[in-house]
Structure formats: C-alpha cells, structure tokens
C-alpha cells in the first residue's frame, strides 16, 4: 500500500510498504477513505518531537471501512463492513483511567511505556503515528491502518454523511471542543484563544456552544482571522499591536478574559526576550518548547480564571510566569483529548446540522501530493488551513 512516511526533519515521502496485518486479538484493519494532516504533524515535520525514526508512517486523523477484525474484537461493537472514524488516542477500555473516562491516559496501549515514563513520569495512551515515545504505532496517512483495541475507539458512522463532515471527529473537533470544555465556561464569559488554526476554529465554535458570550481570537494569518470572524469571534492580529495583554485588558474593562486558551503549543512565535532565549535553546537542541503563548495566556488571564492548553508541548519549558499563576489563583487544564467522551455527542451535533466541520478544509489532494502539502501547510501558503488526503486518488 501507499503510506506517508517520516524520513527525517523536513523530509516526508510517500512509500510503497507492506499492508498492515492483525497483530493482537483486539486489532482491526481499516481501509482508509479519507485522512488529514494535523497541525501537530507539523511538529514532526519540523523535527521538534523526540523519538521519531526514519520510515515511521505518520498521520492520526483518519476514517474508513473495517476490512478485518481480530479474534477478540467484540462483534457487537465492531464488524467487517462498518464505516468508522478512528480516534487518534488508543484506549483499552478497562484500566483505572479508561473507567474514569480519562481515555487519553490509558495505561495499557503504549508498547514503549518505559520510554514515556523516562520522559514524563507515567505514560499516556498510545497514539497513531506520533513518535515512539507515544507507542510508535504506524499512522493513518496511508491506504490501510491497523487499529488496536478496535472495539473501544472507532465510532460507527451512518451511511449518507460524507467523509468530510465527520473526518475531524478523529481529532481536531473533539480537541477544540475539549479545549473549550477545559475553559470551564460560565454564561457570559469572555474567552481568549491564541492561534486560529483548525483546532482553534473548532474551539471558537465550541466555546459559543458551551455558553461563552465573547470569543477573542489571536493570530497573524489574514485568512485564518477571517475564518475566526465567520465563527463569531472578535480578532486581534498580534503583528499589528504592541502588547496583546494590553489590548485584551482594554477589551475586557481591565478585568482580563475569564479563560485563556493556548491553541498554538511549542512552536509559538513572538518577539520578547524570553522568545529569543527559547529560539536559541531550540537551535542548540537544549530545549524543544517555545512557550511564548503560554506565558501570554498566564499574564493575560483574569484573577481566578482558567488557562486551557490544547496546544502540544513536548519537554521542558522555561520562564513560565509561575508568580502570576500562583498569585492570581489560576487553574490550568490540559491533556491529550479524551476522545471517546466527545465523539458521539459531537457526531449528533453534526447530524442535527448544528455544525458542518468541513468549513476548515482548504485543500483536497491525492496521497502523492502529501509531501508538498506538509511544506505548504507549514508555511501557510496558498491560503492553506486544512489538508484532506484521498489515499486512493492518483495525481492528475
């Protein structure tokens, strides 16, 4: 089959590889009909995620048809022929964490748990196509994928809904939604969201669904700010203002946003002294994270407010304003998305016509164009906001 492989920093290739096979009794094989490039895949592309290996198949947003199931897959839950969206986190369904709905913290799905323990203390769940530390599972930017614990994660999709409306249930819609849930929104709240990428676009719409009165979105890419406005957000182009924190203060009557969301993560840009230090450390490979947005979130948030972090971080971050965090009594909420909490309710919202997630798509491409699209998406060229890949189409 064809698969998108990480061959090194800034080196993505479509390779012909053997088809996946069932390895464990609860596995299924899915024939992929649609898959997408996620903003977090760009961290792999740019080489900021430790424990990648040449030849890794990447991609964690995919859906398709079940073509094979293992001997222990509960047939009432999943069978050959089912059309499914596959969540990017893999969960066993029976451990302490799964039973508390903390699906992305599953104890039993990372074969390299010891490696994650060395880096972060205890291992989160395995993820598709996202470093060996997170399990080293082959990803879904391919024609087929092996899905472990297949009777827990995959969500069945009724016929009649096109792929592009439900594909983002695999990650970015639930991730944006959980980012908003983590803001602990009360009626009348003002939520500030850093970043207007695809996750943030869903976070903006989710914040309104959850009762926010105002959403203020911050970015510097005109078409993304425009998309945020279409979602009902007020926008700030951070390149056009001196201090984001001052602007937010003015916009909120000297109180500050009730919650601040970092939907950017470890590749933030800025122009503070701390940012320059981050850059230098990254260049020397001392540190992988540039937490510039997180710093701004902590400083801008109102007293007693909440900082929600759906953006991805990898290692250790310096110069976090811990004094502001403590003295303003802020709450921090974060984590990989607990997918199975949100997929079904969000599918119901899509079925009721409350939201059509396909609004974020800017590009549909055949799989052979994936390597190009990584660069285009990273550099935000060609008004690129979200790339959907058809793994079976051939390049024109």
């Amino acid at each position, binding site marked *: 089959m064809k698969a998108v*492989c990480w061959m090194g920093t800034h080196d993505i290739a479509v390779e012909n590889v053997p088809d996946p096979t069932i390895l464990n009794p609860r596995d299924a094989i899915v024939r992929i009909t649609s898959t997408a490039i996620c903003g977090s895949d760009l961290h792999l592309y740019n080489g900021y995620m430790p424990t990648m290996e040449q030849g890794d198949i990447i991609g964690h947003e995919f859906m398709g048809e079940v073509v094979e199931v293992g001997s222990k897959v509960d047939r009432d839950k999943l069978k050959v022929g089912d059309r499914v969206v596959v969540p990017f986190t893999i969960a066993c369904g029976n*451990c302490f964490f799964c039973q508390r709905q903390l699906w992305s913290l599953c*104890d039993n799905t990372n074969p390299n748990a010891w490696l994650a323990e060395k880096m972060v203390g205890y291992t989160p769940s395995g993820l598709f196509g996202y470093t060996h530390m997170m399990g080293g599972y082959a990803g879904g930017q391919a024609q087929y994928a092996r899905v472990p614990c297949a009777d827990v994660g995959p969500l069945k999709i009724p016929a009649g809904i096109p792929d592009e409306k439900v594909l983002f249930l695999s990650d970015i819609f639930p991730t944006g939604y959980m980012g908003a849930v983590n803001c602990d929104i009360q009626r009348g709240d003002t939520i500030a969201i850093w970043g207007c990428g695809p996750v943030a676009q869903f976070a903006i719409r989710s914040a309104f669904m959850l009762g926010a009165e105002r959403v203020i979105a911050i970015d510097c890419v005109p078409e993304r700010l425009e998309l945020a406005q279409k979602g009902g957000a007020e926008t700030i182009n951070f390149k056009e203002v001196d201090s984001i924190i001052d602007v937010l203060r003015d916009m909120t009557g000297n109180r500050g946003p009730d919650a601040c969301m970092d939907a950017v993560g470890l590749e933030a840009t800025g122009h503070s002294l701390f940012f320059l230090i981050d850059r230098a450390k990254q260049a020397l490979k001392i540190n992988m994270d540039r937490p510039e947005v997180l710093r701004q979130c902590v400083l801008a948030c109102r007293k007693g407010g909440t900082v929600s972090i759906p953006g991805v971080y990898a290692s250790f971050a310096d110069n976090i304003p811990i004094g502001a965090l403590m003295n303003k009594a802020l709450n921090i909420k974060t984590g990989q998305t607990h997918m199975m909490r949100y997929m079904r309710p969000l599918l119901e919202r899509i079925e009721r016509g409350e939201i059509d997630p396909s609004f974020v798509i800017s590009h549909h491409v055949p799989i052979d164009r994936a390597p190009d699209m990584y660069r285009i998406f990273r550099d935000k060229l060609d008004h690129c906001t979200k790339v959907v890949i058809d793994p079976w189409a051939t390049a024109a």
Partner: protein
Amino acid sequence: MPSESAVPVPTNHNSISGKIPKLAMLAGGSALAAYGIARRSKTGIGLAAVGSLMAVEGTRMGAARPYNARSSFAINCASGDAYRYWRKLENLPSFMAHLSSVRMIDDRRSEWTVMGPLGAKVRWTAEIVDEQPDELIAWRSAPGALFDFSGWVEFRPGTGQRGTVVTASMSYSMPGGALGKTIASIFGKHPEFLLREDLRKFKALMEAGEVPTTAGQTHGQRSKLMSAFHAARSKQQKTVHYPRTESPLAESRAL
C-alpha cells in the same frame, strides 16, 4: 509479605563464566572497537562504542552474582483473578519475556525453560514453596538445579477497592553471570527493568486481555543502523500466544 524463609537469596553461584568469557570480552571488545574506529563511518562509531563497552565490561567481570529485583503495579481487577492467572504457571510465558515455556509436573513442581544469552535454552525444575489463595505465591528452583532462582508474588487489595496491587520479587543468577548481564545491559535490560516490564505485561493481560505491541507492523524504509538494531531486538522478542479458552479479560469481566 512472605516470610524470609520463603524467599532465600541464592548463594550458590554456579558459574559458567570463568576466565574464558572475560578474556573473550576483552579481546573481542577491543578488536571490535579498533575495527569500528578504522571504518571511519557512522556505523563504525557505533561498532567502536559497543566494542569499548564490551572491553570495559570484560575487565570488570568476575564470578556470577545474584540479582534481586522487585516491582509493583496497581491492576484494575480482583485479586482472585490475578492470583488464578499467575498460579496457572503455564501462563507465565505470556508475560515473562525470557521464559519460553512452563510445564506442570505435578501441583507443586513445574519445569521452566528460559532463553539464555545467544539463544541457548536453559531448563530447570521449580517448586512452589508457599501459597496463600488470592494472596501469595512463592517458588524456587528445586535442590540440585543448575540455575538458582526464587521469587514470590503478592496480591493485595488496593485502597478504596481500587483493584489489586501486585508486587513481585525475583532473585537469580544468570547463566554466564556477568556475561549474561553485559549482553542484557547492551539493550538496557537490567533485571529490575525486565521484571518491571514483565509485570506491566501482566497488568495489560489482566486489564486489556492483550499486551500492546508494534512488533511486526508495517513501515517505510528504515536507516541501516536502525534496521540492524531492530533485527537484533526482534531475535529477542517472542510472540505471545494468547490462551484461547481462558482469556484473563473474560475472567475478570465475569466478576
């Protein structure tokens, strides 16, 4: 915790590792290091590093030492389920990496086969020296066995009815003594690490009904260095054959 008499620390260091492996490690390691340096390539650097490690380890080698390891995992199942799965000793190879098989001789005695260094099979008889249903199993190698081995596992209810805390301890001297340890340590597998990973697999079997794996999955072209590494590792890995009729998961679900 079991009484001290149940868990003797082995003192009989039956040693195949005399002077020959020591000299072999020194000479082989030095030769490999020299060859690696002479190659002046990335692979060469790797070979040189491994060679130097071997040579240094060679100078340190002495008689076989006993190894003690202990580890503990909280498992989301009833203590009786965990106890029964473990007590059926034929199940042990499904989560103990180096065990290739266990055959029951009678209710207390069993024959254990392990994969030693370089694929050599070592076989010995073990006997259960203490057991308390749902709480404790202790075993050790039968008198006269070439291989000194003892261990115990304890099943204790977690706080607030949160499953079972399983604590295991093993003491043994590896065949080949320090040589065995050196080979294992090249891959970062010290006895503590091995036991910990074995218990982690036990937990996965009890909770998820399977051990997570990516061994044998598809991928694109690997670099030459990593291909060699994976080839070496896959020789050590074995396929888990899941019990067909007695799924630990099905048992724990039934309760």
